[in-house]
């Protein structure tokens, strides 16, 4: 169970990490792991082994260089920049050609801007109730079927569908409230 509130701002998280709060570091990794992973694996289409190397290296750099971050609220762009730079270094070192297009899991082209937007949606998702977060994450990010979610939560499939719809509506309201 997380003991650091997920509602902590990035600045607060950075300050707690600088104070060597281990729970804050766990939360930082949890908060940005999907983002770093998406840049490596979708943005630059690295192999799983290369993506893992970049992933670990990025968090090592974040940990060791957190004191050099000038604007604590700029944590996400800083991590994004570190990740993109490491991906490019790895591609250059291997003599490979940098991908011209970035591809989403469904085959569409995507961009780092779109990953940033996706990150904003996840931040909004974190403001919803735990059951809503779980429902939407299972269905969209983990590709779990109605049947699988229904079995795990011991609920009828029809209930799953209506809850997903309701939670999606709440997420949309949360996003629109932030606009």
């Amino acid at each position, binding site marked *: 169970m997380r003991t650091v509130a997920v509602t902590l701002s990035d600045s607060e998280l950075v300050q707690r990490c600088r104070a060597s709060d*281990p729970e804050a*570091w766990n939360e930082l990794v949890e908060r940005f792991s999907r983002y770093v992973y998406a840049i490596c694996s979708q943005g630059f289409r690295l192999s799983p082994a290369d993506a893992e190397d970049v992933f*670990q290296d990025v968090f*090592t750099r974040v940990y060791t260089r957190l004191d050099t971050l000038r604007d604590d609220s700029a944590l996400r762009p800083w991590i994004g920049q570190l990740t993109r730079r490491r991906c490019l270094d790895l591609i250059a070192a291997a003599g490979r050609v940098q991908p011209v297009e970035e591809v989403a899991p469904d085959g569409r082209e995507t961009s780092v801007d779109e990953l940033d937007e996706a990150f904003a949606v996840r931040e909004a998702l974190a403001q919803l109730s735990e059951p809503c977060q779980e429902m939407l994450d299972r269905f969209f*990010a983990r590709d779990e079927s109605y049947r699988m979610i229904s079995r795990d939560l011991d609920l009828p499939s029809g209930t799953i569908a209506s809850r997903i719809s309701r939670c999606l509506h709440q997420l*949309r309201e949360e996003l629109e409230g932030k606009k």
Partner: protein
Amino acid sequence: MTSAYHEERIGLLLRLLRPAPRGWVQAAQELPAARRTMDEIIARAEADADFQAALVADLEAALAQEGYEPSRPLLDELRKRYAQD
């Protein structure tokens, strides 16, 4: 008012950020502990030439011999320092 966040687009954006493999996340979360252990190992190696030679010869065996847990971030950092050319 029209919204850029129609539900189909929200679903699409949620799909973009999939969970990273659990082991990767855990390894990254272990970094602070790994750094502390690494500092201890480096201090020992600087004071004990035999231990340092053992680290260079066979890093994982030397760590196991001394009872250190060979986590991924610890091994990565120590390999940079003690890997044989």
